[in-house]
């Protein structure tokens, strides 16, 4: 284990030791993954000393979350007000207190498996990640950052320092839900987040939908369904049509947790649930579903 004292030391170290190095924040799944022999890191690098990356800030209409911010820190932040209820929805289903006190936003982004509950939310908020190495910084969409299961665009000499997204305006709302074997502290069969923006006439001005699985084993946007909904006037019918499009769009697979058929049913159901919750937050009543 390498325990850097400060950021310059860390970036220097990463630049000169690029093989077999695993970065961990609070490492909620690292001991498990080592014991199950899923990883065999030569060196673990403990990032928890870099407290400068533990913050939630708002500047010029952009919310910035430091990579070492825990899920508990996030929902306790005064910036994460009722418009960001979606993060409390994530926290409730994410895990028990002892997990959300440890798990970090950066860790959730970098784990890049299909089960990370924060990822669909960051996808629908069109969030970006900021990466830093000794040579400088770069920024990319969260969507582009995750390449595949457990693989990201992170180079061996880089760390994720921040994720950021535009503030949700009064015309927008966002919701998250998840179904697993139990209510919390469980790997999801399906999780889903929806961001919705409505025009005055109840037409969909903007909609973004993400699920932990769409066609592969990573969180993705359901773009066909988004196109179907965008510009349409919300009604029971348009919602049912959208759910049907989603059903056709999904290329889910069976695994040891659950079958493809069940996963598809649940995905469509929680998509409708999260979308109607967004509508409810915007127009203040239970209109559909």
């Amino acid at each position, binding site marked *: 284990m390498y325990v850097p004292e400060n950021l310059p030391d860390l970036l220097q170290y990463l630049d000169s030791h690029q093989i077999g190095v695993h970065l961990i924040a609070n490492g909620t799944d690292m001991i498990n993954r080592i014991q199950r022999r899923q990883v065999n890191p030569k060196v673990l690098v403990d990032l928890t000393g870099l407290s400068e990356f533990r913050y939630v800030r708002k500047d010029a209409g952009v919310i910035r979350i430091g990579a070492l911010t825990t899920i508990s820190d996030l929902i306790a932040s005064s910036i994460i007000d009722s418009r960001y209820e979606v993060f409390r929805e994530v926290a409730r289903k994410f895990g*028990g207190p*002892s*997990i959300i006190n440890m798990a970090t936003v950066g860790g959730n982004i970098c784990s890049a498996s299909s089960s990370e509950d924060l990822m669909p939310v960051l996808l629908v908020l069109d969030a970006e990640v900021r990466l830093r190495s000794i040579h400088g910084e770069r920024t990319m969409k969260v969507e582009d950052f995750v390449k595949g299961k457990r693989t990201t665009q992170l180079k061996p000499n880089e760390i994720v320092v921040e994720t950021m997204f535009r503030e949700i305006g009064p015309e927008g709302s966002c919701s998250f839900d998840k179904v697993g074997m139990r209510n919390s502290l469980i790997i999801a069969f399906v999780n889903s987040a929806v961001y919705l923006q409505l025009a005055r006439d109840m037409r969909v001005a903007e909609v973004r939908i993400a699920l932990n699985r769409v066609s592969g084993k990573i969180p993705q946007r359901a773009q066909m369904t988004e196109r179907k909904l965008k510009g349409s006037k919300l009604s029971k019918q348009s919602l049912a049509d959208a759910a049907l499009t989603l059903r056709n769009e999904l290329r889910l697979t069976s695994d040891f947790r659950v079958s493809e058929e069940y996963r598809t049913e649940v995905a469509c159901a929680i998509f409708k649930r999260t979308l109607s919750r967004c509508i409810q937050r915007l127009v203040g009543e239970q209109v559909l579903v």
Partner: protein
Amino acid sequence: MSKHLLKFNVNGKDHALVVQSHERLLDVLRDRLGLKGTKEGCSTGDCGICGVLMDGRLVNSCLIFAIQARNKKIVTIEGIGTPEKLHPIQRAFVKWNASQCGYCIPAMILAAKDLLDRIPEPTTDEIRRATSGIICRCTGYLKIFEAVKTAAAQMKDDRQ
């Protein structure tokens, strides 16, 4: 396998010991410091039995490398009260017979401490949520919730 000097504070006492990279906080507390009140359950972060407070917040000591506790304040069940002078949360657990086999109780009491230090008068829902990561296989949850309520009331009286 690298070695590190771990300096941390456990139950109000400063410690400095040499730990190996792979050692878990749970093992250092139990085997090196002899604090057997912290129990091992599933060892995978699912049951919450190994809960301790790190800088006041409940964490699973089976998931944390010992060296990650450097410069932190750890509180285990031994730091909550003594047999002669029980903490109000412990007295409330006794009053309600909230402990059956007792294995999950250290973590339950620490979870209650984390909650009551932040939210002195929690709702039942907040109590349920605060203890939700800890599994009691005797399934005696209701008395645990009652005990936390009683402790909250007692601690409020004590403050006044």
